[in-house]
């Protein structure tokens, strides 16, 4: 009797952990989506900048102010941003893999636990 109670409590805890892992995975995917969109946009900008002559005027919108920028500087900034975002995405990818593995193993241990509880309950019913 006590064993079943304990196992059930353990099952609840594991279920909570599972749900938390699912939420974490969801958040991770949302952030990944945002970054992927930004990466795409920045790559478009880089392509446009690459097409320009050296003397073309480039401006950046900083708040409500349109500021003239040096083409080389603009290029460097966009490239740096692309590098940063790519690194972030790689980091998020490995975190996601990690979370998936944890999720799968959690699912396995939940299934095993459920089996044990069922077995015990069946044993009790017979006795």
């Amino acid at each position, binding site marked *: 009797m006590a064993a079943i109670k304990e196992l059930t409590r353990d099952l609840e805890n594991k279920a909570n952990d599972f749900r938390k892992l699912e939420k974490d995975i969801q958040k991770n995917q949302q952030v990944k989506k945002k970054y992927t969109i*930004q990466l795409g*946009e*920045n790559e*478009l*900008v880089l392509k*446009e*900048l690459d097409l*320009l002559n050296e003397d*073309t*005027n*480039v*401006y*950046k*919108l*900083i708040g409500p102010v*349109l500021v003239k*920028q040096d083409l080389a500087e*603009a290029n460097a900034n*966009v490239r740096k*941003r692309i590098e940063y975002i790519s690194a972030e995405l790689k980091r998020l990818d490995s975190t996601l893999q990690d979370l998936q593995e944890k999720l799968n193993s959690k699912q396995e241990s939940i299934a095993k636990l459920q089996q044990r509880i069922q077995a015990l309950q069946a044993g009790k019913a017979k006795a």
Partner: protein
Amino acid sequence: MAATPRMELEKMSVEHLRGLKEQVDMEVNLLQDSLNNLRSANSRLEIASAALHDLSVRPRGKKMLVPLTASLYVPGKLDDAEKVLVDVGTGYFIEKTMVEGKDYCERKIALLKSNYDQLLEVTAKKRSIADEAGAILQAKLKQLAPSQ
């Protein structure tokens, strides 16, 4: 090629099929949303392109009304329409000539159109999978019902 996925679907249980159909339906909805977004972005670009073409035929010094807010316009005169500022994304604006500006619009419109076509293909495929799953689901349910 089309036969194999159908056999896979036939093998699945009703539960499994239902879940799969729901998932694919959701994917189709998402894809449809993306298609709509692409279409509206494309129409915005077409409007910009039309505006550019119009500007390019206006003479310098032409009187015009300049919007300051959504409901406030002030009279002004058209300055040099040879230079245009193009918003290329992430807060960057590039000064281009009228010709380059028009070319930019054309390029973007072409890019969006090809993305739209690709997406349309993918959506059509997904939709056919969803339809097939639905049909097989119906058939299975009908099979189960009379046996009860």
